[in-house]
């Protein structure tokens, strides 16, 4: 006769899909807050985005406060 029982085990490895998602979020977030000078919006607005620097202006205070070089 066979029977089944439920056990809880600890899996130590980090799933590859999680690694990919988190690494992408890390790279994108750091770039936008720390370094974007119009690059993201230039995809839609072209050269005008580099003059407006909307993300730079929006993240300006955090950019200074977190230690990123600015201006």
């Amino acid at each position: 006769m066979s029977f089944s029982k439920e056990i809880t085990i600890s899996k130590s490895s980090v799933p590859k899909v999680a690694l990919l998602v988190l690494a992408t979020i890390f790279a994108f977030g750091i770039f936008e807050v720390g370094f974007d000078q119009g690059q993201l919006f230039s995809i839609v607005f072209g050269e005008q985005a580099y003059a407006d620097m909307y993300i730079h202006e929006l993240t300006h205070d955090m950019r200074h406060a977190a230690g990123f070089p600015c201006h």
Partner: protein
Amino acid sequence: MRTSLFIAIILLSGCSAGVIHGLVNLALVEPYLDRAIGIENQHMFTSGEAKDTPQFWAEYYSYRAWQKGGQLLAGAMLGTAIGALFGIVFGYARNILPGNSFAKKALVLAAIMWITLYLIPFAKYPANPPTVGDPETILLRQMLYVSFIAISGFGALGFYLIFRRLRSKRFVAVLGYAGFIGMVFALMPQNPDAVTAPTDLVNGFRAMSLVGVTAFWLSVGLILGALWQKLQPDRVKQTKFQ
């Protein structure tokens, strides 16, 4: 590992800590930013680039209110991003970090990452308020800052691998990292921009900036540690047939 739960608690802890960072900045850093931008305004009036009119100030206060709102949004974005890195490292290192609970392990890792990715780079290239910083040198300054953080972070990882291989005298690996980063610190070029703003403004800004970022690392360690302890995303149920 329950992938969705693993990602969710990492993003939640990073975003929450980032909002805390933004709130601390609103309370402590913004007065220094306002003062520094006030100096920039005076320069614009002196040079004739802008006129000291009620219309200027109405637009200025409206614009600054928008930017201060951005402090919280940027805090959430930056916190989520750095929290993602913190979560990846914690995912790999949680079983080898010292501490008898995940909460303590997360705090230990937060302290290590705060020192290697923030405090040491900050000592070399400290934060500066507006009015300090030449637009012509921005690319160079960004490259120096990112390079220093990368060298410090990968250096710490490299010396950790040496630490693991050593059976005794493991402190040698810690001393090795200290010597390595000390040498890099001495060899890397200085920030090329002269600091012409008042010393009390610059020093006060840097001190409050340090408090804000420290609050972030403390928060992300506490929150992720507590969530991991409670939800344990690495515990999975399996049915065993006998």
